[in-house]
Each structure stands twice: as structure tokens, then as C-alpha cells.
């Protein structure tokens, strides 16, 4: 829809020239892509199983029963056990496990003394230890990151869609619709966000699975937080609207849709882009906070907030949980903030600004 105009291209080049932000961006993108392919690195399903001269790739797709590999049970094959068995039997069959051979839901109660809160151990491949029910902390961190990031991106897209629509309508139409719209936004913004989320989450029917619950949580959060952006969009649109090029477009006979999409939006995009990283950071922290309070994602979805809660209540007995979670959280939020700063600077029309 938009063509990258030379100005924008210049801004992008400037962003690339700000090393800290640019690298942060690359790292974050890399981490997110990594987490999207998380099943290949952290998973209880094997990458490859060679059984009776046949190769199996159980990572994606339907679950394979223990019987498929000659075990005596019908439920999902335990690949770690399978690997041990093949090793014991000294057969030509083999199993290739991911680096961390645990899933985010799986409880590693295999060894006798495991009763939860095992410290980090390379021997058992629990690099960040385990939580209360003996689930691998690293696995939960990774999948938690994936969910939080996806959630944040979804949040960003949805809030921006609503905010842009409402903001540009108010700004472009002006007058009464602006007045009424703004009043509505003001009232809506004053609805206490956290309480509403708590109330709505507790009355929501949960019958349709985790996916539905996550998306309904997303919708609820978006419902109560799109207002913040509207002000900025409205103000920028207002400012741009009075410029000569808009008047020129009107004179040529362009309709409001064309003016908004072709002329106004490309010019307010700097506002949008500048705020984007901070919106992402806000989304990650609020989903974590909600989970910490117990109103977020339904258990046992891996989540940072839930890990933090466990970590805080077992600060002395299982410090590895809180250490790894806080490190991950701080690291991610720092990356996002660096990106945000860089973007802001890149889109700042004054190239040499000094701060006092």
C-alpha cells in the first residue's frame, strides 16, 4: 500500500547506523524466530528416530504411540527412555534428541529423588533447573517467550488498528465527532484496566481450549488499552491535515479515504513506529504481571509470570527459577528498549538534538 519514500528510506538507514538499536533488533528477531522453531531445540519429542531401518521425524505432526517403537504402552512415546533402551539393547536403532530433551509441560519425575525444585544440572540436561512440579525451567522460559512475544505482536497490531482508525477519524473529521469521540476515549481510558481484566477473565467460559483463552485474554487487554495511542494519532492527523498538501489533494478532488491512506498515514507513521517497541514492552510486562497475579494465561501454559511467582515464593529454596526468569525478562525488555530508543532517534526530524 505504501511506497517507501526517500525520506523513510533515509530514516531506516539512520536506524541501521545506530549500532546498539540495530543489533538489539537483530537479536530479538533472531530469538523470536528461534523460539518459533523451539520444538527443534527444546522438546520432549525426538528429532529423528531410527527404528528397524526406518527413519521417523516425530517433532511435528501427530503424536506417536509407544507401541510404534515396540514399547508396551499406547500413549505418547517417551523418547528419553527409548534412547536409553536402545543404548542398553545395543541395537542399531538410535534416537536423536534435541539439546534440551524436555517439553514445557512435561514433568521429569523419572528419577527417584525428584520431588520438584531440582537445581540446574548438566547431567540431567536441566540447564536452568526445574520448577515445583519438576518441569524444565529453560523449556518453560523459551515457550513462555514465544507466547509472550506472539501475544505482544498481536497486541500491537490490534491496538494500532483500533487506535489508527479511531484517531484518524477523530483527527480528520474534527468538530463534533472529534469532541464526542475524545470524550468517549477519555471515559473509556478511565475504566480501571486491571480490575476489568480480572473480572472478565473470571467470568469467561473456558470450554474452548487454551487457544481461545489466550486470544480472549488478548482481546480483553486490547479493549482496555487502545485508547492511549489514539491521542497521538489524532494529534498528528490534526497537524498534518492543515498542511498545504492535504488542501492540494482536496482541491484535486481526492476523497477522504484516499487522503487518509495515501497522504495522512504515511506522514504520521513516525509516531506509530516510535511507539511500537514501547507498546511491545508494555504488552510483555502486562501479560507477565497478569500471570504473576494469576489472572493471565490458564495453567499449565508456560509463562514468565507464573515462573516469577514460583520463584518469588521459593526465593531461598529455589533461587535458580527467579534468577533465570528475571535475567530473561530484563534482557528482553532491555533489547526492546534499545530498539525503541534507536527508532525514536532515527525518526527524529532534528538530526542533531542535544538533551539537557
Amino acid at each position, binding site marked *: 500500500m505504501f511506497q517507501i519514500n526517500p525520506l523513510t528510506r533515509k530514516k531506516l538507514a539512520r536506524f541501521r547506523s545506530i549500532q546498539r538499536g540495530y543489533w538489539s533488533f537483530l537479536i530479538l528477531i533472531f530469538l523470536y524466530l528461534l523460539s518459533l522453531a523451539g520444538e527443534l531445540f527444546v522438546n520432549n519429542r525426538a528429532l529423528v528416530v531410527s527404528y528397524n531401518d526406518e527413519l521417523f521425524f516425530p517433532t511435528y*505432526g*501427530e*503424536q506417536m*504411540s509407544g507401541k510404534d517403537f515396540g514399547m508396551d*504402552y*499406547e*500413549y*505418547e512415546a517417551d523418547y528419553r527412555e527409548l534412547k536409553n533402551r536402545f543404548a542398553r539393547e545395543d541395537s542399531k536403532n538410535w534416537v536423536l534428541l534435541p539439546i534440551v530433551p524436555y517439553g514445557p*509441560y*512435561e*514433568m521429569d*519425575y523419572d528419577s527417584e529423588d*525428584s*520431588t*520438584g*525444585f531440582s537445581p540446574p544440572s548438566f547431567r540431567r540436561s536441566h540447564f536452568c533447573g526445574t520448577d*515445583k*512440579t*519438576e518441569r524444565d525451567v529453560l523449556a518453560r522460559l523459551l515457550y513462555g517467550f514465544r507466547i509472550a512475544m506472539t501475544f505482544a505482536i498481536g497486541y500491537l497490531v490490534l491496538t494500532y488498528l483500533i487506535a489508527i482508525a479511531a484517531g484518524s477519524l477523530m483527527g480528520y473529521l474534527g468538530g463534533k465527532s472529534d469532541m464526542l469521540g475524545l470524550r468517549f476515549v477519555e471515559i473509556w481510558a478511565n475504566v480501571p484496566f486491571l480490575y476489568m481484566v480480572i473480572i472478565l477473565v*473470571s*467470568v469467561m467460559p*473456558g*470450554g474452548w*481450549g*487454551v487457544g481461545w483463552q489466550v486470544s480472549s485474554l488478548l482481546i480483553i487487554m486490547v479493549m482496555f488499552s487502545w485508547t492511549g495511542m489514539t491521542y497521538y494519532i489524532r494529534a498528528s492527523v490534526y497537524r498534518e491535515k492543515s498542511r498545504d498538501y492535504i488542501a492540494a489533494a482536496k482541491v484535486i478532488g481526492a476523497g477522504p479515504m484516499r487522503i487518509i491512506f495515501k497522504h495522512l498515514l504515511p506522514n504520521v507513521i513516525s509516531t506509530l513506529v516510535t511507539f511500537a517497541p514501547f507498546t511491545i514492552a508494555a504488552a510483555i510486562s502486562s501479560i507477565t504481571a497478569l500471570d504473576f497475579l*494469576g489472572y493471565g494465561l*490458564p*495453567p*499449565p501454559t508456560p509463562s514468565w509470570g507464573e515462573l516469577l511467582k514460583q520463584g518469588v*515464593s*521459593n526465593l*531461598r*529454596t*529455589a533461587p535458580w527459577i527467579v534468577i533465570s526468569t528475571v535475567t530473561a525478562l530484563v534482557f528482553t525488555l532491555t533489547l526492546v528498549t534499545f530498539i525503541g530508543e534507536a527508532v525514536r532517534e532515527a525518526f527524529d526530524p532534528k538530526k542533531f538534538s542535544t538533551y539537557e
Partner: protein
Amino acid sequence: MKKLKYLHIPSLLALSLLFTSCENPKLKPPREDSNQKNQEIAGGGGTIDREFARELAREFGREFAIEFARQMKDSPNLVKFDFEKEGNVTKPMEDLIGEGGEVHPLLAHCSEDVLEFYQKHPDCFSISPIDALPRDLNWQDGGEEQEFASPNAIKGGTWEVFMRDFPRTLRTIGPDANGAFRSYLLDYNVISLVHPHPNSDGYYPGLAKSWAVGKDGRTVYFQLDPKARYSDGEKVKVSDFFFFFYFMRSKHIQAPWYNDFYGKDKFQKVTLYDEKTLSITFYKAKPDVVERVSIRAKPEHFYEELDGEFLSKYQWNPEPTTGAYVALPENVDKGKSVTLLRQKDWWADEKRFFRYRYNPEKIKVSVVRDYNKAFEVFLKGGVDMFGLAKTEFWYDKLPNNHELVQNGYLSKVTFFNQTPPPSYALRINSQKPPFDDLNIRIGFHHAMNFDMVLEKIFRGDFVRMNTVADGYGGRSHPTLRAREFSIEKALEHFAKAGFNERGGDGILVNSKGDRLSIELLTGYRHFEDVLVVLKEQAKKAGLELKLKVLEPTAAWKAANEKNHQVIFSAFNSFVELFPRFWEPYHSDNAYQEVGDSKFEKDGSLKPNLTTKVSTNNFTQTAVREIDHLINKYREEEDLGKITEMAHQLSKMIHDHAVWVPAWKKPWLRIGHWNWVKFPDDWGPKETRDYEEFQVFWIDQPEKERILKAMEAGKPVADKPTLRIYDKYKSN
């Protein structure tokens, strides 16, 4: 915009009118009109002397009551006092108010509202001459029972405890009164007529020095202890037990549960004989009738009568108590702590069963909002005792090699008790598909891996609950066992119900393509880990559990509306002689249709029944045979038959498979500072809570010694202080 401005005025007016008229209508005194009239008479329109008005009102009321009584006697249509028919009392009663209008001496002090109430319910409240007391009563005084406290106990010291939240009121009844703090005011403190002995099936005397069960098996006679007094020095009067029912049945206390529990259908009659003798008649001759009718005294002189201001008037003004500890308004540090003082010369100081209990001079209950923080406060010595039932506290946060335990400053105690456990269980709503199929329910039982939960999460300290009525001694089914975790059996039963193939994600599907997926609701966030284990293990049996963890009240509401498929919850059980089945398993608590009208001839349920909400039948059990047996069980008065029926019912409910028993803990585990001393047995058999019987004492010199040693870093014991009391350990 202009128009809008004008609109403001009427709308504001309307709003303000609405607010002023909205003063909680519940709070309005019901007899407002007559009160107002009286006040006008008294004050003549000028300022009103409240005392005078009250006196006058009383006078009027009394006259009204007398007139009312007279009319009742004269009118042939109205209910007559027909005690002769009931045959409980050998002689006709003396009137509460005589022919001449004089009030019976036992009730001379009553206010007119209270008298009127007694008059309105002549079948509930009666006075008989002392010679009407049956002569051949077998009076008991608990003399044969052993005391359960230690004669070594020393009085004095301050007992430091914590509460999670500051009490919202010092009332013990009405809205907000049912908080944790109430225990210190009421449950562990106030003395009833008679108390069940916590070590035996007998009783020990409280306000009553002796008691006897009448021939009908449902009337219990009590003789008050002449020493019994309230904390304000007033004697406990027999009429206080009349007043108790006036109080408990009053709408003003805003406690419908109590209104109902102490209602007329259960507590049928109270009779006074003289200043110290009374009887209470229960609706059934239950084996444990003494315990059932052993009410507490309500200080009538304190309340006089109730009105719409009850809640606000007594919010921070606690009633005088017969118990050892008094809460005085001046000892309330709002938001921070409440200090209870032991009465200087408490009437039961020398009384058997009480003399070595209630030892600390003060109980200081401070607010610590966070449980983990409270634990830290405990480790610093700010709290004397701390419950360590949770595995992580017992093993990880205060391990046996913890410095404080090693040095003998702190003790870790395991005390095996015998009491009905809270009924932790998965309650299956048998009304909701697919649970309307018995095979699914049985399969579900076999898919729940509680063995792993007990072994891994509770580290083998908890044991599996087996029946719906564990912990009731002989009344619990002796051989019934909970269904074990077995993937084969689960799959077999699921297959019988049509779920015989696994989908791509390993969850079973039936021929219609429905997945075997169940929503599991709970209000217990702290047991999330348990449910997570169950969920992961159930996958092996091809069953998907979707967990829904809500706030306790929200979960409770959903279950009350019978919107759940399965709920993980627990009811607190009372220490009772035999379990209750009607509330959770009778079909009258599942559907609105009454009795057998909900069943077809063959015993199956009719279609389109109306669900009954807000009952404890969370399993929606509606089985005709179970109904009939429960009805018989409730009517039965013989303990042997009750036992037999309780066993039958436990078995039938087990076969109906709607209740997956979880666990029970056969012990109490606490940590306490070693300046708190306990009797040799630690506590009585039926102790459910370490604070319940207050048999411990604070050893002040020991406290100083320990604190000094701690400061110097010297141990006071050469080995860790760990104590196990397994005298009452069963099997």
C-alpha cells in the same frame, strides 16, 4: 448544549432523591411506626429523652403483648398451647405472662420486643414449674472423663499469633463476621452448655454443670453452673437460652444460615424450670443429641433487643463472653492487631476441664498479609507457632537441619490426630455430558493419578482418601478403597462408552469425532501443581483435562450454579458422630422436582428436569435407591443401624462414581518456638487446629533463656528438636 445544561437540574435532583431514598432498606427497623409514635408522645415534638422514650415504648409493648396473649387465649381459631398433646411436659405450662399481666419472674427483665417474640411462638418457648421436671433423669456431669490438659501448665505470658487480614468486625455473627479472627473470639473461646470430649465419645460440662437426656431421646435437660458468668460480671441466666433463639432467628443479624440452622424445625422447644434448669428439645432423637443442642448463652442484658442498627451498633463492640479471653475496643489497633486479655478472675478458673487451659495472659493477633512473610516473621520469633502442613515449608523452608531447629530454639512437631478430614475430591457433575455415562465416570476415576500426586508433590506424607465419609470412626466404610490409577482400566471403560480411538494428539475420540476433553474447575490456586500432574498423567489414558483456576468465590459460584463438569474442592467436615449424606447426594438437592417425581418407573431420570442451584450436591447425584436410603438414614435413631446405612451409602456412592477422593492428612504439623510448652500427649485426639483446645502455655523464663542463648549464638539443645506424637495414629 444549552438544552443539556437545563437537563442537568432535574436529573441531578432525581439522582439525589434516589440516593437519599436508597439508604439500605434492610437497615430500617421493622417496627419503625410504633417507635416513632412513642417518641412523639414522649418528647411532645421537642427534644426526645431517649431513655424515657425507650421505657415508655417498653410499657406500651408489654401491654400490647399481654393483650395479644389474652386474645390468643380467647380466640378459638388461633393456635392453642397444646403441650399436653405433645406429651413432653407432664404438667401444663405456666404462662410467660400471667392473667393479671405480670411477667413470669424468669423473664422479668426482658424487653417488650423479646417478650412479644416468645409470645408469638408459644410452642417454642415455655416455662414449667420445677416439679414438672421428670424425676427419673439420669444426670451426667462428665465426672468419669479424663482431663486433657496438663496440670503443669503455667499461666501468664503473651501468645503471639498472626492473621492474614484485619477483622472487619468484632461481631461473631452477621456479614463479614465469619473471618479467621472469629475463632479467637468465639470458636476457641466461648463456652457452650456441654462440650464433646475430644478424646472420647463422652462429654464434659461447660455452662451446664450436669445434663440428662429425656426419655423421648430428643429433649436434653441442663442444670447451669451457678458460677457461670459473662466477662462483664453478669450471671448467665436460663433466659439467655430463650434469648439465644430470639437472637439467632432475628432478621436483624443478617445471617440467613444461622436463621435457618437454629430454626424452629430443628430446635423445637426450650423450657425453663427455675433459675438454673432448662431443657431443649431437638426434632429427632439423634444419638448425639446432647452435642446438637449444646448451644452457647447469648447475653440478653447486653443486647436487650435487636433492631435494624444491630450491625453498626455492635461492629466494634464485642459482646461479653463466657470464655477466658475478652476483646476490648481499646485493645484494637485498627489495621494492625487485636489483643485479647485473659479475664482476671474467670469463672471457670478452677473448673475441671478448663483449669489448665487458656494459659497465656494475652493473645496478640497481628496482621501479616502475606503467608511467606508471616513465615519469616515466625523465624524471627514474632509469631510463636506456625502451621507447617505444606511440604515446601516442612522440607525446604524449615528443614530438620535448619539452624533454629538444630540449636533447639524451634521445634518441629508432627501430631497424629483422628478427625474427619476436609473432603478434598474431584466432584463430577453427572448431569453434564459425557459424564451422564457411568463408564466415562469410572474411566475418569482410573485416569486420575493421585498416587503420583501423593508421592511426588506431598512426598508421601498425605494418604489417599478412600470413601466419601472417611474419619468417622466406625461409621466410615472399613474396606472400601478409592479406584486406583490404571491406564488399562481407564481405556477399557472409555472404550465401553464409545471412545476407542486416539486422535492425532493422543486424546481419545468417539465415532462422532468428539474428543474426550473435560474442563476441570477449581478455586484453589495453591493446588494448581496437583492438577497439572493429574492433567499430564490423564493424557496417557487419552483424556484431556482443561484446567480452569478461578478465584475461590467465582469457582464456588460456578459450582453452585452447577455449571461445572468437574470441580476440585473440599468441604470442611465437622467433628460429628456420623456423616451427612443428604446435602451432597440427595436428588432433592440436584433438581427442583421433589422426591420420586423426578424418576421414571424404572428408576431412570425423567427428561427436562429443572436443575436446583445453590446446594451442596455438586455431583448432581440423583439415584432413587440412594434417595430412599438417605431418607431412612435421616430418620434413623439407632446408632447400629445408622452405621450400617452409612456403609451402604458410601458403597452406593462409590459405585455411582461421581466423587474421586483425593487425599487426607492424618496429622497436624507445626513449628513452634520452644518457650511454648505442651502437655505430654501434645493435644487431644480430635485436635484439628493447633489453637483449638488451647492446652499449651508460654514459659516466660524459658523464653528469656532462649532469646539470650540466641543472641550469644549458643545452642540450647544438643540435637534438633523434632517431635512426633503418634499415640493416635490409626492403621
